[in-house]
């Protein structure tokens, strides 16, 4: 009969009216400034630079100014200038460091490609979102000091990921040390034997192989186009 669909609709809206008072699945509003939403661990917004030590953030940046992120950044919002000198990093090894590291957050789109391409785990995604400023230009251009945040902060926002990173870095460091020791031992042995050998290769920077195995991609395997599967 004419109107039955309309009455059905009225019943649905009435149900929702009542439901919004007792059913949290219907009434999902979070009243924001008073109540903060619980962020999932994977949540990302704007990158920051990881430093090992909270007391000396500039001195213990993991970043070695390799400029890979600057090159890969799709909207080109990262700007890096390498240092002229070298400073010891957290492990005590002399490294080039970023003399200028700036991220224009008015351009950054939080895509986290910089994080993915970084071979040193030096740049990670932050979870800040209350970042309104009163000016459009300078305040949104974050410099090295503003970007550096300690590893403990990283553990606070992405605990699982940070633990993995730390374990990997520790393993890499250990492997590097062992390699260096072995090299030193070999060197000493070689020096003792012939005393005319050139220096053994310097220990390599943390391993890159986990993300980008060298060598060409896999063999071309076209998708099975002919495979017409179960059609109901």
């Amino acid at each position, binding site marked *: 009969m004419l109107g039955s669909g*309309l009455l059905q*609709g009225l019943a649905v*809206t009435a149900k929702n009216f009542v439901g919004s008072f007792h059913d949290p699945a219907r009434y999902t509003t979070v009243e924001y400034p008073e109540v903060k939403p619980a962020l*999932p661990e994977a949540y990302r917004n704007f990158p920051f630079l990881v430093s090992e030590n909270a007391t000396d953030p500039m001195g213990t940046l993991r970043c070695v100014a390799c400029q*890979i992120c600057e090159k890969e950044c*799709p909207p080109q919002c990262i700007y890096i200038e390498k240092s002229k000198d070298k400073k010891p990093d957290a492990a005590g090894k002399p490294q080039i460091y970023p003399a200028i590291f700036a991220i224009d957050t008015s351009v950054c789109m939080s895509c986290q490609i910089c994080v993915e391409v970084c071979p040193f785990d030096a740049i990670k995604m932050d979870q800040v979102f209350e970042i309104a400023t009163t000016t459009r230009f300078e305040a949104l251009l974050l410099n090295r000091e503003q970007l550096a945040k300690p590893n403990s902060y990283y553990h606070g926002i992405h605990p699982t990921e940070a633990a993995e990173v730390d374990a990997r870095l520790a393993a890499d460091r250990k492997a590097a040390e062992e390699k260096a020791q072995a090299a030193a031992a070999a060197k000493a042995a070689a020096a003792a034997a012939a005393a005319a050998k050139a220096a053994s290769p310097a220990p390599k920077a943390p391993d890159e192989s986990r993300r*980008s195995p060298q060598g060409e991609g*896999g063999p071309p395997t076209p*998708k099975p186009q002919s495979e017409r599967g179960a059609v109901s």
Partner: protein
Amino acid sequence: MNPELLTPGGANVRAVHDAFHGDLLEVSMGPHHPSTHGVFRMIVTLDGERIVKLKPVFGYLHRNHEKLGETVSYLGSMPYTDRLDYLSAMTNNWAYAIAVEKLAGQPVPERAEYVRVILAELTRLLNHTCLAGFLMQDCGCSGTPLMYAFREREKILDLFESLSGSRMMCNYQRFGGCRVDPTPAWVDATRTLVGNYGAFLDEFEALLTGNEIIMARTQGVGVLSAALAINAGVTGPMLRATGVASDLRKSDAYGVYPRFQFRVPLGAHGDVYDRYMVRVLEMRESIRILEQALAGLPGGPIMDPKAKLRGFRPKAGEAYGRIEGPKGEIGFYLVSDGGPNPLRYRVRPPSFINLTVLEDMCLGQTVADAVIILGSVDIVLGEVDR
């Protein structure tokens, strides 16, 4: 085939114009109009409230996405694809990933294929739910269906956020797999959502599908013939609403879709109501696919271990990869010269091409109809204007 179908407007304009003799009124609907879904513009010539001519105007959101794609690396385009059709970032990602994988001959592990199907079908749910809400808003509902649609959409976006880190700009697919491996907790949460979605759809349909006003407003409005739809490159639910059985999930059988049991709903009239109903029925099939995919989700790596992230340079050649996006066929055409950036990066935007027939559908209808016809095309200006 009737050759007059091929001239835009053409015969229809004359027929309609002969039937009415009043003075014509030219109205510019948009770019700032509540129902043009962004900054779309239609220059509408009216006779009374009847439309005798309608010319779409594009480009208010144009940012030359394709040029951007040529200036950044293959990987760098991935986050930009999120911003094409910003309601369905996951399917855009997938279409782009499929094109690049074709170009480079990159295999994808099975688990990643399953995850891609799950995310694509979630995106379809999200997109179609929102579309139904928007369409009803265009019909004059005071926001109620839209708010229900957004309520459920938020739940799907929460899933996307906890997986990819972002609600809408997911940037999740990679060439040769996916970026993050979903945790068992995430899979459980998805299962819960999928389990509840049918009940939501029932309620949503109780509000809308049988509503006499909606049926009166949408049935017989904006009729599109199957012949014209095929010829004009219309794809997706719009094509299926005209009764053409065309679904790339079946015909291209990409990914692991052949492993799932699902049906393709078809309309018979090609009007707005059919377009709405085809989408609703598609959502029910999506739920079936999701249930099967979640049940059969295999273990294993999420990324092909040989896939390259940095220094990705496919050999010279070209590839056109396409998938069945929620709005239709979303395709990417890539030409590589062996460099790190594509030589040519082309997006085949479904909603842009579906707009080809907008004038044909609107002629002879009223202003009020034009609004819902546009709504039923399901456009997102980020993709139309690129």
